[in-house]
Each structure stands twice: as C-alpha cells, then as structure tokens.
C-alpha cells in the first residue's frame, strides 16, 4: 500500500512537469510578454517604455528559458520559466494584477468555495442515488420511463437557466432568501441554501440517469439471479447486492472530483456573489489576469492527480478484488 502510494506520487511528477510545460507554452510562447503588455495597456497608443515598465513590474522582463547574461545557477533561475513556472511547484504563485498575493487570496477564498461545493456534492450524490435506485427498482414500468424522460429533459437545460430560474423564483418572486451575497459563520446558511439547491437540481438529470444505467447493468448479472434464487426480497437484492457492486463504478466518477471541490464552482459562485475560488477564477479570466489563471490551472491539476490517487485507494475499500501493490 505504502509502496503503491509512493509509486503513484512518483508517477505524478512527470505529469506535473508536463502540465508545467503546457501552461508555460500557452502563456508565454503563443504570445510574447510584449503582446500581453500591449493587450493589457490597450493596443493603440502604447509606448515601448510603457511596455517595458509593465513587464518589469510583473517580472516578465527576463528571458524565457535561459539567461545568457547570467552564469551558474542564475543562468537558469533568472528566467521567466523558472520564476513563473518552476516556482509553481513550491506553491509560489506570485502576485495578481491588483498586487495581492495569490497564495494568500487562495487560502482565504477556499472556505466559501468548500461551504458551497461540499453540500452540493454530498446532497447531490444522495439524491441521485435515491432517484436512480427508484427508477431501477421500478424498471420497465411507466414510472421508470417517465423518470428517464424527465432526466433527459433536465439534462437538456443549460446550467445557466437553472441558476437564473432559481434566482428568479426563489429570491425574486417568493422572496425566500437573498438573491446573492455571502456572510461569514452561520449567516452563510441563508446565502447558501439556494445555490446548493440549484446545484443539486441541476445535476439530477445526468447523475440519476448515469447511476440508473450502472444499477441496471449490475442487475443483469448472474449473482443477482443467485440472490433472488435464495428467496431474498427485492429490496435486499437491491441494497445488499446491487448497490454494493454498483458503488465500484460510482466511486470512479465521484472520488476523483473530491479534491477539486476546493476549486469551487465557476458559474454558481459568480452568479451568487460568493467570494470563493470559482468566482476568483472567473474574475481573473474576465480581467485577463494571467498570473491568477496560471496558478489556478496548476492547483486544479494537482488536485485532479490527487483525486486519481484517492480513486485508486478507495477501490480497496469497496472492491475486495483490488489489492494495490
């Protein structure tokens, strides 16, 4: 087990290096720092001096990959690649356009993101599994048929409309909760109820239908027939046999996103004005704040790799056939 974790962690290193190269290429090779400066400062009426100043302020005035003017270690360290990409490995993200420390910003914004994402995640899974079990239990009846139709219809609605519709009905029409905003502590609850509800409802269509497929697939297997031949009630067959086996594929899809919950949800947070990492990312994208986007890409990748590792480890909990070595 320990050896497995070590090996997987070692595997992650080349992947992180690859991610680093991709982001570096994306941010510094497609467009030169000069282009970015021109873009930020407005394409017209920009003097070379202004560009140099902009680059110097942000540390983009160094050579990209190697610094011919320096020697020794500084030949490599006094470069954009080292300063902006390699330093991501030690979670040194530098500063945003507004000169705030990105790492610090991330720390403070993680809380609200989690406060929204974790309930959506947990309630969502519970609701989806319940719906899916219901449809599988009543398979091949009208209840199942209409359930599937409802799922497909719900899948066909853009997540934007769930948010807009939810805000309109609950906040504007019925005045139940504030339309947007956030507060610390227990006050957060009244701000979070609606986005959590919307997040859950928005995910029902795709989620329940996917789980239903998994359940039905398991129910076609031989061991289910064995269980029925023992005289077990259908509920015992569903809960003791089918659900446990279906948990294996469900986990693959679910565990991998747990670490990514830290990243928050982009759209919901920005619609509801929740000061989490999702809205931070959106703001950065809209303000074209490359340093922040770069930092979020890196963090997201690290969390995803962590999710893959957790997925593999979680298999050992639900699938006795899996022994990691």
């Amino acid at each position: 087990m320990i050896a497995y974790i070590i090996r997987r962690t070692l595997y992650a290193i080349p992947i992180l290096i690859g991610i680093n190269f991709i982001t570096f290429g994306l941010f510094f090779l497609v467009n030169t720092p000069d282009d970015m400066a021109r873009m930020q400062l407005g394409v017209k009426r920009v003097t070379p001096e202004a560009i140099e100043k902009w680059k110097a302020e942000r540390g983009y005035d160094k050579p990209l990959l190697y610094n011919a003017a320096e020697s020794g270690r500084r030949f490599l360290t006094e470069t954009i690649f080292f300063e902006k990409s390699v330093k991501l490995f030690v979670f040194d993200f530098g500063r945003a356009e507004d000169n705030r420390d990105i790492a610090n910003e991330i720390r403070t914004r993680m809380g609200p993101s989690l406060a929204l994402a974790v309930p959506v995640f947990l309630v969502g899974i519970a609701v989806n599994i319940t719906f899916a079990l219901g449809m599988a239990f009543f398979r091949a009846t009208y209840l199942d048929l209409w359930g599937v139709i409802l799922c497909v219809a719900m899948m066909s609605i853009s997540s934007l409309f769930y948010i807009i519709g939810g805000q309109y009905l609950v906040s504007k029409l019925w005045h139940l909760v504030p339309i947007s905003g956030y507060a610390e502590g227990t006050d957060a609850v009244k701000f979070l109820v609606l986005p959590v509800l919307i997040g859950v409802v928005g995910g029902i269509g795709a989620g329940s239908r996917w789980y239903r497929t998994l359940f039905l697939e398991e129910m076609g297997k031989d061991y289910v027939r064995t269980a029925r031949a023992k005289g077990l009630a259908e509920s015992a067959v569903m809960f003791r046999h089918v659900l446990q086996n279906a948990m294996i594929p469900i986990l693959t899809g679910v565990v991998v996103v747990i670490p990514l919950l830290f990243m928050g949800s982009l759209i919901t947070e920005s619609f509801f004005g929740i000061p989490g990492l999702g809205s931070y990312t959106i703001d950065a994208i809209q303000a074209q704040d490359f340093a922040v986007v770069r930092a979020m890409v890196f963090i997201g990748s690290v969390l995803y790799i962590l999710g893959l590792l957790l997925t593999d480890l979680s298999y050992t909990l639900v699938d006795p056939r899996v022994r990691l070595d």
Partner: protein
Amino acid sequence: MSAALELAGLRTTLDTPRGELRGVDGVDLAIARGECFALVGESGCGKSMTALSVLRLLPEAGRITGGSVRLGELDLLALPEAAMRTVRGRRVAMIFQEPSTALNPVLTVGRQVAEVIERHTSLRGAAVRARVLELLGAVGIPEPERRMHEYAFQLSGGLRQRAMIAGALAVDPEVLIADEPTTALDVTIQAQILELLAKLQRERGMALLLITHDLGIVAKMADRVAVMYAGEIVEVAPRAAFFRAPQHPYSQKLFAALPGAAQRAGPLAQIPGQVPPLTQAFAGCRFAERCELAFERCRREPPQPIALESGHEVRCHLRERERAAPRAAPAGEPAARAAAAARPLLEVRDLKVHFPIRRGVLRRTVGHVKAVDGVSLAVAEGRTLALVGESGSGKTTVGKAILQLLRPTAGSVRYAGEELTGLARAAMKRHRAAMQIVFQDPYASLNPRMRVADILAEGMRSLGVGATEAERARRIGALLEQVGLPADAQARYPHEFSGGQRQRVAIARALAVEPRLIVCDEPTSALDVSVQAQILNLLRALQERLGLAYLFITHNLAVVEYLAHEVAVMRGGQIVEQGPAGQVLGAPRHEYTRALLAAVPKVD
C-alpha cells in the same frame, strides 16, 4: 411414487426482436423425492428456461404462459411473489453453471451462505456462523474458518461451486435444481463436484433436477432421464432403459455422435441441419426436418407421448408399431490408424514461455509465470498430435508460441528443419502459409465486419497464394465446397451462420493458404455434440485427402481417442506423458494421466 416437483404442460415464452420465442412448449415431468432426474439437451432446447420457470426467475423478456408447477401440494405459478420468495432457497434451491459470476464478488463466501440461513430461519449471530462452518465443511471446503472470510475471487473454480452448493443447501431444500453445474469446470474437478452432489442428495433425500448436455454425466448420476428438443421433452426413461435402448431417433443420434476410441474406424454419425428456430409454429414433429427415418405423417401431425413399459415414454410416430433395437455394442478393437514412421514436420524442443511478474515502486520483475516450461514435441506429416490438458496447463500458449504469435522465452521451434524462433516479422512471413490455426470460439474468430469471401481471401492476398484475383475467387469457391458450405456463403457476413458453419469458415480460411500443419485450438469445445461430430468428421476427411498434420489442443479426451495418433498430456506448463494414442490412453503410466482418464464420465 410421490412427486416432490411436478410440471404439467408448462409453457414459457421469451420476447426477442425476431418475435415470440416459445422456449418451453408444453413440458410435463415429475421428480420423486430422493430421485436424480436429468434433463438432457443441446444448447437452445429450453432446458435452462424450464429450470428458471420453476423458480419464476425468468429474465425480464420471459414469461410463463401456461401449465402448472406443483411443489407437493403447492401450485407455484399461483403463488403471489412474496410467498414465492419463501419457496425460493427454502424449499427449492438452484445452482448455476458459472460459479465465478454466480457469486457476488464483493461479499464474503460465508456472508453469502449466512444470508440464506438468516432469510429462512430464525437463527442469528453465532448460531448462523456455526451453521455456515458446518455447511462449508459438509461440501468439502478445507479450512472453513478461514475460507468463510474469503471472497469468490480468492477461491478456485471447484471451491466456488462448492460454496454455491453450500448456499443452496443451507436450509435443507426439498428440491435442488443444478443447471449445468460442472460445465465450466475441469474434468477432475467435475468428478469431485458430481460425487459431492450425489453424496449430499443421498444423505438428505432431496430431489435433484440435473440439467446437462453431457450424456456421460447422466450415466453417472441420473435415476431417470428426459431428453429435450426444441422446447419439448421427446423421451423420458429410467436410466438403464434409456442407455440400453434409446427410442427417439434424436436420442439415438446423440449417442452415435459421441466420439471415442470405438468410433475410430469411420466417421461419426451426425445430425444434418440445425435446431429449428423456436419462433416458428410447428405443424408436425419438430425433429422431422433432421430425421433420417421421417415419413409423411411426421411432417403433418405432431407425435404425442407414447408410453412404453415401466415409465419409458417417447414422442415418435415410429414407436406406435415397434421398439427400437438396443444400442449397438461398441465396435470391438479400435482400428489402429496407419502408423507409418513419417518424417517430422514440426519439432519443438525445450520451449519456454515465461511472463514477468512486476512489483514494487519501480515495477521490477520479481518472478515469472512459467506458462510453458520446457515443452518438447514433434508432429509428423499427415499425423495428429493431441495436446491434452486442463485449463491453465499452458496448452494454448504452446500453440501460439509455435506459430510465433507469442515470442517464446527460450527453446527452439523448427518447421521442416528451419528455426522459427527469433525470426523477424518479415522473415516469418515466408513460413506463415505452411502453418495455420483454427480457434475455439467460432463467434470471436471471424471478423463480423467482413464478408466470407474477404475473410478467405485475406490470407491468400497477404501471402501471395493465387496469382490473380480471379484465381483466388475460384479457389474460394472450391474451399467452400470442400468444407461443406453453399457457394452463396461468399457474399454473406459471419453473423448469418450458426456456430458449426462458422467453424467451417474458419477451417476454410486456414486451408486457403495451403498449409501443411494446422494448430486446432479446442475447435469443437464451444459446439454441441451433434455439430462437434460434423466438424470432427470434416477435419478427419481433410487430413486423409490433403495429408495435413494437426496439432490438436483439447481438454476433451473422447475427441482425443477418436482423432489422435499421438498424445501429449500437459500439466503446469510441462508435458507429463507422451506417446502413441493407444499406449497413453490405454495404459497410462503417469499418475495424472490416470486421474484424468478416470475422471471422465463414460456413457458405457
């Protein structure tokens, strides 16, 4: 005779895209307490559907449309589902063909047995545990205390089936239905499981409905036998009467199609054609189309069961007038097949195929699975060497390594004196035409996206057999005729053919490049016995006509007795005994060969 289980006029249909399939079409049978009743038939005859109908466990497309199933005084088909659940497992239990999928992979074996006890009795806790231990011991699972905490994947196939049996017998059911309980198992394990079933049945006095396609198992186990064909029971008889003189032409053919040493002199009897689709309505006897004895009335009027003496019944118009003669005694001495000292075509020396096992942080190779570990053999021109072994013995790996489809780890493979190991892909191509292969699964061995003509032409094009397309087209026509397929087969796709016909296409594909040696990897083990006879006859006829050499890989000793000149017995990657067929099978010297031969259930 008091019947424990009685089926009367049972009808079951299955909705398929091609229409309503009448899988069970009016089945009557009665099983007495303490009796072993065997239901025999080839695939698709409706025997499994009959068993599932008894427990009302049909797949969702299936439904019971008529008849009755009585368990003692109880009419099972009239019970509400909740009451039916108190019958399943409690009074009627069932075990299935494939123990590896029939057990839940994520629950321990002990848990799955305990589940039955908790469902049907008031025992709980330690009492259940004690009962589980007792049951696991009773079905011969060693160290039950340890095994009860293990999962299905940790047990061997035989132990899994024992665990299934333990679960089925947990609360002493009156009737046990066993649906092909040993088909997925090796022959030595099969013997053990059959013995266990017989012993448990004797001890507990339960009725056993044994569903099988293997007449050898019937001979060993059954008190009475029913033969099923196309959804109907065509013959019911006490075992002795049935084996002495089967009355239905279909039953007679089933016996005649069995390969064995006694049949070596000539071709096997085969049943022409194939089982009719059960979606159609039948006007006359369902077997009439394939019956050599059929006459006009057979096609017009469905025969009713005719009672002969002492519980022997048969559905055949012929039996109104006269009884069939007893089965012909096996034809004396096996005719020795010409044993000329031909020169060896293929020589394999000390062949090894090892697969590395990697472990640890850096995936270092910590050991090897020695799939093949020092095999030496030789196949002479025009001769058949049978490579016999149970699953996992490495026999298929030998076949692939000889054809260089797998790189051998060590050893030499010489074809006509030329070394093949280590040849590059291009250099190996020169020898490809000489050695071909026919595979086990007729469904996986033909590309479903190619027409038969393209399948046959592929090898010829690749290896430059036939100078022009026109010549190849002529050759394809000739090949199809040679393997007994109609000429219009060329333009069709594999899915339009039955299993036996596909296997003919696969043989034609191998023949297309004019090989001298064909590796036959279990070519008949996925086929029913009557179709197996067709393929074996074809292979033998081709050998005689074309002088082919066969390396015949199989686990079926009856086929070996019928076909092989030489036999090599494999176990654990090594050959334990090798020699002329008569010697190895008649006077085996190695203990394993003897065990293997003893385990095969024999008809006679």
